């Protein structure tokens, strides 16, 4: 019994680190740009398809895909920011939500038309195949790799934003972009880069996820709702908040799947409702 619970907790931790990895990009974009990036799910899905196309058409393997797919999708994100999203700064966040949600529907529809719904398989890289028997469960090496990488990446991002000069600019830009611009910092450029970076983060997360899930046009839509809940619970825009909440919610979900599987889809949203009632700004957020 205890053994099974350990297994579920570990699975929860693995999913939680995905949530953390993915919600980080959203949190950064919202925190700095005040844009609710509903296109995150579509960008995530695009990252998977770039990796899959690279492998099937050009023979580009997993390791290069970890680098190239975020770069490619990040560039698309930058173009998007320059053409469309920058027109929304200073407006009600609802406009951003509508624009990015519309874009999501278009992008998903296009991929659906071209690749169908069942999707394509993306193999686990040779180096990370197999697994270890932990006694209470069999842990696939690839899943362990996911946990380690996402924790490193999350902690690294937090360090950059909280402890470096670049991070200080970013935080200042969030607080008062005009003042920062008066100090000679190219704020619009910084915003563009931030958006591209946030989007690239989604593509990175999906290359990590592709060998586990099927590469399908709806893979982002399946995840984006949960990830939004993570960001809301953690506090919109809070980097540390989204990391802790991501991992925490993964664990809660894991336990629910064990105790009462039927509720596993709902539990995150129940928590979200409770948090919004008691702390409307989220666990780690502050009132704006």
């Amino acid at each position, binding site marked *: 019994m205890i053994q*099974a619970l350990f*297994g579920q907790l570990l699975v929860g931790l693995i999913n939680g680190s995905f949530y953390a990895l993915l919600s980080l990009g959203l949190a950064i974009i919202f925190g700095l740009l005040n844009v609710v990036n509903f296109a995150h799910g579509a960008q995530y899905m695009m990252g998977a398809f770039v990796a899959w196309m690279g492998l099937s058409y050009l023979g580009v393997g997993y390791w290069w895909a970890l680098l190239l797919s975020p770069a490619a999708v990040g560039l698309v994100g930058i173009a998007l920011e320059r053409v469309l999203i920058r027109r929304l700064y200073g407006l009600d966040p609802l406009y951003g939500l509508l624009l990015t949600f519309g874009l999501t529907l278009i992008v998903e529809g296009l991929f659906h038309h071209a690749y169908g719904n069942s999707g*394509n*398989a993306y193999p686990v890289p040779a180096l990370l195949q197999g697994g270890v028997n932990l006694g209470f*469960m*069999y842990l696939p090496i690839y899943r362990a790799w996911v946990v380690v990488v996402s924790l490193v990446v999350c902690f690294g991002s937090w360090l950059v934003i909280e402890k470096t000069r670049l991070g200080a600019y970013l935080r200042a830009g969030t607080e008062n972009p005009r003042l920062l611009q008066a100090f000679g910092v190219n704020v619009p450029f910084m915003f563009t880069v931030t958006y591209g970076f946030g989007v690239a983060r989604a593509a990175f997360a999906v290359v990590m996820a592709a060998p*586990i899930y099927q590469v399908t046009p*709806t893979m982002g839509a399946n995840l984006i709702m949960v990830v939004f809940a993570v960001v809301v619970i953690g506090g919109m825009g809070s980097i540390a908040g989204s990391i802790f909440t991501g991992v925490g919610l993964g664990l809660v979900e894991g336990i629910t799947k064990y105790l009462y599987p039927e509720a596993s889809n709902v539990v995150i949203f129940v928590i979200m409702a409770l948090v919004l009632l008691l702390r409307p700004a989220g666990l780690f957020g502050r009132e704006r």
Partner: protein
Amino acid sequence: MTRILRNTTWALALLAAGAAAAAEKVSDGVVKIGVLTDMTGYYSDLAGPGSVEAAKMAVEDFGGKVLGKKIEIISADHQNKADIASNVARKWFDEEKVDAIADLVSSSTAGAVMPIAAEKKRITLLSGPATTGFTGGSCTAYNVHYTYNNWALAHGTGTEVVNSGGKTWYFVTADYIFGKSLESDTTDVVKAAGGKVLGSARFPSPGTTDFSSYLLQAQASGAQVIGLANAGSDTINCIKQAKEFGITPKQSLAGLLVFISDIHSLGLATAKGMYLTTSFYWDRDDASRKWSKRFFDRRKAMPTMIQAGVYSAVMHYLQAIKAAGTDAADPVMKKMKDTPVNDFFAQNTRIGPDGLHRHPMYLVQVKSPEESKYPWDYYKIVKTIPADKAFPSVEEQKCPLAVKK
């Protein structure tokens, strides 16, 4: 002048009478078949646009006209939602003059549309849904369940797996009518064959992508066989993740509803060795190959059993209209049940008084990458299950309409 006028009047009257007679034969001067399916969601690859294409092929092959009137195919996306399905069906029947609805993949949508069709005396040609009760407790006089049902899947795969030594089972079940009914049908089969069911994990569907929790529970149960009472992308992810967590090949998977589109996207390396039951395999004989290659040219994918079933059902329906000399539902249903089906899908099979089309099913095993010689060469046919063994008998189905007689 008056003579000309009189003659013209006569001619017009005759024409009008002729038109009226024809209108009686074919209501509204057109035979309209609606394909109501999942166009974009979870089941869109195994039914969806492929089902619509199959229906169109049937109409083309029939010649585009029946009893001198045009045959029209329309389609809509029910998004796997019962309320959308019933709204579309009502609109189709009331405003669009649709005579029959085909496919209806996903049992919840079929269950919503069938009573409406029966009330309006229109025909449902189920190819996609699986619930056995559609020709049992909830049967209607205007329904044909054409391609497969849970009973056939459970018996085909369940019996065979238990007989080859898989005595203890654990289910990973999609938590809605289809999954639950498939689980309960298979449970009965496993018990009857001398096996034991240790438990089940039910997951919310659609919406689940990570199955590791449920698979770990199945693993912890120690069952020899994990029965996948789910479909589409749920099944794909289950199979993939079971391999990842080292569950297979120690415990074996029994795919209770697996389509060739699933195998195609999983790849043979992951799916090899798995047993499944299907009513159609494109590479079974010359006739099935010939039709499937035509389908492939249009869709760039081989047909699933649902899509092949839509073609065959629509064709049988059109032939029944021709034979009955009308598109009125009652005589057409009678003709469909009286005439045997004879095409690439099924040979000399019959639709029972309960509306269930009883035909052979095939137990197949997925080939390994080495065994597969050409594209879509995926299955070995292990066993042909004859129609009377593949489907429940009229007595077992207990459809009130059929029992009364």
